């Protein structure tokens, strides 16, 4: 559920097709996010899941898998 939500946010924010997004996709290298787009998707996750993602954590979130695990750990 969280994973699907994250993927749909990535698709919307980055303007990519949902089926292009895989668990191991790198959001910058594979999905074409530039540095500001990374901030934009982080902001969208913060709003959607009502969490705060500090900058030091943002740097570690490079793949879809990283993000899913991080968000799950935050809302548990």
């Amino acid at each position: 559920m969280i994973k699907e939500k994250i993927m749909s946010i990535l698709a919307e924010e980055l303007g990519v097709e949902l089926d292009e997004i895989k668990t191991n996709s790198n959001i910058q290298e594979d999905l074409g996010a530039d540095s500001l787009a990374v901030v934009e998707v982080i902001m969208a996750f913060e709003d959607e899941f009502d969490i705060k993602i500090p900058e030091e954590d943002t740097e570690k979130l490079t793949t879809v898998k990283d993000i899913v695990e991080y968000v799950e750990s935050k809302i548990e």
Partner: protein
Amino acid sequence: MNKSKIIATGKYSPELAVSNFDLEKVIDTNDEWIYSRTGIKERRISQNESTLDLTYKASLDAIKKNNIDLSTIDLIIVATTTPDYFIPSTASLLQSRLGLNDSHVTCFDISAACTGLIYGIQIADKFIASGSVRKALVVGAEIFSKVLDWEDRGTCVLFGDGAGAVILEQSDKGILADYTNSSGDDNLSLTLPAVSLGSPFSLKELDCHSNNYLKMNGSEIFKFAAYAIKDSIDHILVKSNLTIEDIKYIVPHQANQRIIAKVSKDMKIPLEKFYMNLEYYGNTSAASIGMALDDLYGEDNLIEGDKILLIGFGGGLTWGSILFEY
């Protein structure tokens, strides 16, 4: 007559336009990178003009275009973080340059970074509403090119030099609502150091100008900016009992096109409602809102009663908005 109205706008920017391609020759960057992340194509850079020069020329533009009687100005506020001097204030120097030394004028500078013009208009509006002054000249002016680290490609490509002026006077309508806020930036995500300690009695060696550059944490400021614009819109609409559809134009601080696109998308406000000119000027800090407003006025498509919302956000952290009727 206890309100104030913006009766004139003016702007000035240095003649030298520095394009992204020009920057490619100076630092390791490129047009595509800059334009896609900021919406900026070029910025104006001062070669030999001072902050006072820019301030004066923007003021003169506002005065001349609108046939303002100089002698009736009794308040001058300059919003700047890049003055020529700490003493005297830019406003005092401007008074002199305008030939108003024999007039009764209150003059001071304010420091609210990119929100400076919003704070300045708010202060002027209160002075006028209280009856203390009749006519106020408020100028946002910056020469950021002198405080940029020209080896830091993350910041030096973003900013430009310029000045924007507005003149307010007593009226029975005009400014409808104001909102300002601040949140002390203890993470120091946007800083420009001042003179450091260096007396014969201080514990550190004198190093007043080592590393005296603007520093910015771009991603933190991006998040803040998007929040600040939304917060400013929400508060001003509640205060004025209006909806976003009632607003003809939003003139935001011209920091980055991507910030505006994000807010437009999140709040479902058409992008065309945001008036932008940063493509040609970059981020001119306290000058940007006045410069953009003057360009908007210059397009001649406003009619009396149109509601315009100015929004500032920046270092401090500070943010806020002014809603007025054209």
